[in-house]
């Protein structure tokens, strides 16, 4: 592999990993608090849609980003009320929301854009990081849109929050033994609501990255499983932040390889590379790669 190709490969690995990283960071917080959101897929799709609509209407990707978050928050709230207030089955409601959002965004996109579909929408452009982008080989890696750096920053902040702050300890406690934490006086319900809403905001950013960050357009069902992949990253990351970040980068690399390997004349079945993240996560949960320790109260409703 020549150095130029390596730099391109690294740059596209990061670019492909970022939507996952946003969503997975959000989902990690929620899962550590004991709530699984299968609706990450739908929330990302809604974020991509909201971002595209907002940016197209106002001409500003910044307002697009705001739109993305505003679009997703009601959906996250719906998920949160269903799982935390009504104690509905988390898997079921998540899948239901995904079906709902797929329908709504498809319908909404056709209603708003109609024949003008596939038009280019104002989006963020890649900006070279002064200094680093002039590096001889690795230069291209440091020419990215600013959201990329935000993703890493938020991930680091969440890592610090979960392991070093009181809030983090309480959140993790809620995920393992909500009854015990409730006895200590912590507002379990409110914290779980907050965790799900945080997942919503992060998924919105991940989705908006896809539409107005990466390709500057919206297509129906464009997340195409990225939300599920983010959940898989949390599982493969064994519910630890830094391992989840690595999982996202690994999954991004696997996707980048699909485009790189043919250029190098290496024939690997495409399907195998797409399957790889799921296969790795499956081997991990099967106990073949180390021990998995999911939060003990994961996906269990909390009854006061």
């Amino acid at each position, binding site marked *: 592999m020549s150095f130029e190709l390596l730099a391109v490969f690294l740059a596209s690995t990061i670019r492909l990993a970022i939507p996952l990283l946003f969503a997975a960071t959000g989902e990690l917080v929620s899962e550590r608090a004991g709530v699984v959101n299968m609706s990450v897929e739908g929330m990302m799709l809604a974020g991509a849609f909201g971002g595209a609509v907002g940016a197209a209407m106002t001409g500003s990707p910044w307002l697009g980003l705001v739109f993305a978050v505003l679009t997703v928050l009601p959906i996250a709230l*719906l998920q949160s*009320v*269903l799982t935390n207030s*009504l*104690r*509905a*089955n988390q*898997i*079921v*409601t998540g*899948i*239901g*929301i*995904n*079906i*709902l*959002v*797929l*329908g*709504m965004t*498809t*319908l909404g996109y*056709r*209603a708003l854009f109609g024949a003008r579909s596939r038009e280019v929408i104002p989006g963020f452009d890649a900006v070279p990081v002064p200094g680093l982008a002039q590096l001889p080989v690795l230069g291209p890696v440091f020419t990215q849109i600013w959201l990329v750096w935000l993703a890493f920053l938020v991930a680091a902040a969440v890592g610090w929050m979960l392991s070093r702050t009181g809030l983090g300890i309480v959140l993790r406690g809620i995920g393992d033994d909500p009854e015990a934490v409730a006895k200590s006086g912590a507002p379990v319900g409110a914290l779980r609501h907050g965790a799900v809403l945080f997942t919503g905001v992060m998924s919105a950013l991940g989705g908006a990255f896809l539409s107005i960050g990466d390709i500057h357009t919206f297509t*129906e069902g464009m997340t195409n*499983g990225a939300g*599920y992949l983010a959940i*898989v990253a949390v*599982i493969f990351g064994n519910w630890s932040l830094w391992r989840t970040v690595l999982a996202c980068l690994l999954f991004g690399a696997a996707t980048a390889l699909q485009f790189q390997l043919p250029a190098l004349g290496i024939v690997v*079945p*495409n*399907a*195998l590379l*797409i*399957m790889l993240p*799921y*296969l790795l*996560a*499956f081997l991990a*949960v*099967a*106990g073949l790669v180390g021990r*998995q320790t*999911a939060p003990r109260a*994961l*996906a269990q409703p909390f009854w006061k």
Partner: protein
Amino acid sequence: MNISMSSPSATLARIGPPLLAVLAALTVGLIVIVGMGAALDKALLAFWRGAFGNGYAISASLNRAVSLALVGIGFVIANRAALTNVGGEGQIAMGGIAATALCLFPPIAGLPLGLAFVVPLLGAALAGGAWGGIAGVLRTRSGTNEVIATLLLSFIATWLLYWCVQSEALLRQPMTSSATLPESLPIPEATHVPLLTGSYSSPVTLGLPITIALAAVAALVLARSLFGFRLSAVGLNPVGAARAGINVGGHIVSALFIAGAFGGLAGGLMLQGEQFSLKAGFSSGYGFDGLVVGLLARNSITGVLAGALLFGFMRSGGIAMEMGAGVPSALVSILQGLIVVLIAGVAYFQDRRSVR
């Protein structure tokens, strides 16, 4: 199927909320159609024609309902042991792969007495069952959550199918030109599932009576057999069940195997009854829709059949509405999603009444 045992008011309490949810969702559907500026009468007429208009439309809807019902019945059986099978999509894919491989294996097509289509169907059920069974074994051996395992296995199977139709060494038809599509050879006529009417103008297949028979057996086994009782025991109190001498692990594996086998059979029927060659995107959401049907039925096999018919006809009507009245069939997804969310949310009020 135990309506006979419950009082009219209890029956109403059980089927009332799903019915209301469906009505509410349909109302939203009407509002959206009007809101999009489409002619309501034209849209509804197109929907009606697409769902019930002629023999072909009804048959297509029924065949859809068959796939959904099979996945749903499997879901209910696993759920009896408190297991959530979300892997229907992958189990359908494994069934499709196995059925294709068997149908294209020349000696099979030459089998007499209808075995030519029965053997691939059994193979499909077995493949789906094995795929579900893996999750059962993991759950028993290493305590892996079956939701996570079946979901991951589902994605793996979907891409396995993609691999099969992309690679000539597997199931892809021989490449004669660069325009050769990435799909399998068409399966021989002898392996097609026979049509009930014998005519392709109303192509409802033998899958329908098979599904009705399996539904009856499943309802009977769950309600009346020792196996059904043991599944409930394992689901309600695994520790107590083990103390009572029930092989808990064995029942968990069996439950997920059976659930997977139903999904695999659905895949076999889809291939041998409708599609006749394996393509990427073979299952296209039937696994998730079937899961939703199973879930909404709240453990009643009758409910699964009702839900499968509803979703089957809704899908067909929605597709016709898109072509005939310009209302995107995505509307059907919105209604389905709404129904799921409403019923799942309402379950809280139902359960609270019974538990507390």
